[in-house]
């Protein structure tokens, strides 16, 4: 399997793993970081830090400029409109929690929130808990036999009470890129807010938020080769005013006295406290580096890896969840408990994920206690897959 990755060399973590005989096939959980990210982070800290937005001194101005340039640069990566808003968060999970709280005041008992059957807990639980607290209806949109969202059924489920439609663009279990445009425009027509969980999708295809007609889009830096502890919430111009301030502190106040306060509009009004400046700047640097590469070549490489992975698993009679077409494959070996297989793969230095993948209800509805997941990134190569398959064969031989 000759599928070399020309980008592997830029990832010190992958090179370190190789020395330890570890094969990283768990990028859907978190991605390794390119040297450019590390450099940006180190450089930021080394040159001296300062708080943003407030200082009259030069370090503060430099930090503010770098911070707001990072915001613009990330907005450009998202292909957002100049009028749209980019709010920095801790990650996808915080982004969705923010939305579930900042939109809550619009919702009344009997209103509906729609999600898909394959949502990650992050895009299920905030809505579920809101629904429980407020007497809302949480509708779960079904999958078809391929494990994909059934778009016609989904559209049929929309009603005049539907207020929010929140869907993953790429499931972290099924690995299938959803075409959501029909659903999004139907949702928009009836006046529902649309939320896209881009946590898995963003790293495999650069988001185009002019094309993707959603109100909100969330993702996490750490899954896009960026630093830990940062994410983003994109809010389209038309949707920004719907958001009510959700957390309070410094940096987000227009004016206050002891008993009352007025807050700044988004984004600053939604970023109370000292931001994660260094990480945000390093995230922007990561994305700039990413955009300097040949995205077509990366997509081709990842597709070739994915095809080889799928084929190898099928050839071995593995039970694959759905019909994945991107980034990852989840599967079980017949008659073998996923934990046993994961343990023996782990013994052989193969890092794949096993379990419910933060999608307990999905696994349960498929009648599975768990599954293994192999996930890919641009630094993986044919060797990684070969080592994975050799380890799989070895493990199965022991377990059967």
């Amino acid at each position, binding site marked *: 399997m000759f599928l070399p990755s020309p980008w592997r060399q830029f990832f010190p973590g992958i090179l370190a793993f190789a020395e330890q005989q570890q094969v990283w096939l768990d990028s859907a959980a978190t991605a390794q970081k390119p040297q450019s990210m590390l450099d940006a982070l180190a450089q930021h800290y080394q040159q001296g830090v300062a708080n943003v937005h*407030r*200082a*009259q001194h*030069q370090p*503060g*101005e430099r930090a503010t400029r770098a911070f707001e340039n990072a915001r613009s640069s990330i907005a450009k990566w998202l292909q957002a409109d100049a009028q749209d808003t980019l709010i920095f968060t801790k990650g996808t999970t915080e982004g969705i929690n923010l939305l579930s709280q900042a939109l809550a005041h619009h919702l009344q008992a009997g209103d509906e929130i729609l999600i898909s059957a394959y949502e990650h807990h992050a895009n299920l639980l905030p809505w579920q808990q809101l629904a429980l607290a407020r007497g809302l209806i949480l509708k779960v949109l079904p999958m078809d036999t391929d494990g994909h969202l059934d778009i016609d059924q989904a559209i049929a489920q929309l009603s005049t009470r539907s207020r929010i439609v929140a869907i993953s663009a790429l499931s972290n279990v099924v690995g299938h890129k959803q075409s959501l445009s029909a659903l999004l425009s139907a949702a928009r027509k009836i006046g529902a807010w649309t939320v896209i969980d881009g946590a898995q999708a963003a790293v495999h295809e650069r988001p185009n938020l002019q094309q993707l007609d959603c109100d909100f889009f969330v993702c996490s830096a750490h899954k896009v080769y960026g630093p830990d502890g940062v994410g983003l919430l994109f809010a389209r111009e038309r949707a920004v005013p719907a958001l009510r301030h959700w957390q309070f502190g410094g940096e987000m106040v*227009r004016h206050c006295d002891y008993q009352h306060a007025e807050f700044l509009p988004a984004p600053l009004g939604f970023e109370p406290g000292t931001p994660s400046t260094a990480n945000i700047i390093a995230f922007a640097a990561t994305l700039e580096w990413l955009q300097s590469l040949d995205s077509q070549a990366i997509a081709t490489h990842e597709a070739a890896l994915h095809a080889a992975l799928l084929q190898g698993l099928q050839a071995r009679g593995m039970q694959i969840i759905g019909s994945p077409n991107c980034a990852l494959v989840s599967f079980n070996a017949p008659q073998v408990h996923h934990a046993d297989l994961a343990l023996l793969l782990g013994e052989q230095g193969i890092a794949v994920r096993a379990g419910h993948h933060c999608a307990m209800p999905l696994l349960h509805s498929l009648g599975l206690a768990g599954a293994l997941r192999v996930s890919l990134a641009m630094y993986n190569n044919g060797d990684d897959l070969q080592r994975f398959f050799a380890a799989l064969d070895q493990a199965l031989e022991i377990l059967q």
Partner: protein
Amino acid sequence: MNQLSTTAQQAIDEFQACEQWEQRARLLLQRGAQLQELPQTLRTEDNLVHGCETRVWLLLDREAVPPRFQAASEARLLRGLLALLLLRIEGLDAEQITAIDVTDWFAQLGLSRQLSPSRSNGLNAVLIRMRELLDNL
């Protein structure tokens, strides 16, 4: 881009002649002292520019042709910056004002740093407010 007025060109010459920040600061203070006083009655909540920690008031005289801004601040150096800003747009119509490159103007004066992206110095907020007021003309 419009031609600079004679007074604007004079300001540039004056500031460019400064070799040290002290001289520039003293010039700014002088400019600020020359800024027309804004009566207390006009220093209202409505005329306050949001987004700067130092209070700045900005008014647009809607009767005047071409439009005429008035500005005030409690801080003396900021008053100087406001005076230089007003000097640059003096006599221009709304369209011309919107078209001028303020960054370039302050750069020529050697005062680029004062157009800081932070909120402490409100000059950026003043610019935004000016555009808003002109838009609502």
